[in-house]
């Protein structure tokens, strides 16, 4: 892969990743991750 193409893809994805993360924080999505992660997940442990 050409260096310039790689840098372009990298930059676009890095900006998208940062924007997604910030949007996720401000829209409250992180709270639903916390809710899921802070309680025993019955599917993970093979009961649900």
């Amino acid at each position: 892969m050409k260096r310039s193409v790689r840098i372009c893809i990298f930059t676009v994805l890095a900006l998208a990743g940062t924007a997604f993360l910030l949007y996720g924080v401000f829209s409250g999505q992180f709270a639903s991750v916390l809710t899921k992660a802070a309680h025993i997940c019955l599917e993970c442990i093979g009961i649900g």
Partner: protein
Amino acid sequence: MAKAKRVKGEWKRLTVQAAAFLLMNPKLHHFFLGTIEQGKTKSICVPGLNCYSCPAAIGACPIGSLQASLSAGYKKPAFPFYVLGFLLLFGLTLGRWICGWLCPFGWVQDLVYRIPFFKKIRTFPYERFLRWLKYAVLGVLVIGLPLLSAFSGVLVPWFCKLVCPAGTLFGGIPLVLANPSLRGQLGFLFWWKVGVLLALLLLSLLISRPFCRYLCPLGAIYGMFNRIALVHLRFEGDKCVDCGRCETVCPMGIDPRKQFNSAECIRCGRCARSCPVDALHMRFGLRMKDDSHKKSTI
């Protein structure tokens, strides 16, 4: 058939893997209490397949969180911005180096593979096709079916429910052992998942990292970043004397001379450490040169 090959400096990687496990799972007292940690840090995704139902975990598993974020309530599917943000940033910086150095379930498979007495195999028949399974697992069990369930009412994280051996090993078994009320609820699903875990551990005695090669959706995601991630493997074709040592020590059964950019490479560095002429190097940073003149085939 062959024995597991020894490579210098491997203890460093095993130490980093152990340290990463402890960093992601420091609240060890929960193992004895049969409860899980509930602090606020659990809103943050960790890079490896580290179950959030592991009693000691202080972060969130990205694959469990990805499935959970596909719904925002009853019959309300959602786009998982937050978790995708983590996956993009982890993938762009570290790629599958996470698999080689940080992931707890990768570490467990490495430890099991080191057990001697079993003849080791490098690849299975139909290896190329088997490796595509992980993309099917990602598309169907992590995204497709959970999304369908979100449309129809209540979200079901099908990968966690039917397959994930990390959930069984780090979450299910310790919680069931320490918590009598959970023991009373065991049924077919639990024993199915224990069977999947045992099958993968038994396979790990013979072949290196079977779950990572064939089934792991997180490895499938990070592999897509290997070509552009900051952590990368550099191959200098003009130095290479074609001794083939790198290929024989690769835990993922690939040829680093041709596949240094492969989505299968977990950036463990074993090939670089065993090259007698320093033709392979692990690097961190934006790649300032175009790919080596010996072209990657994957």
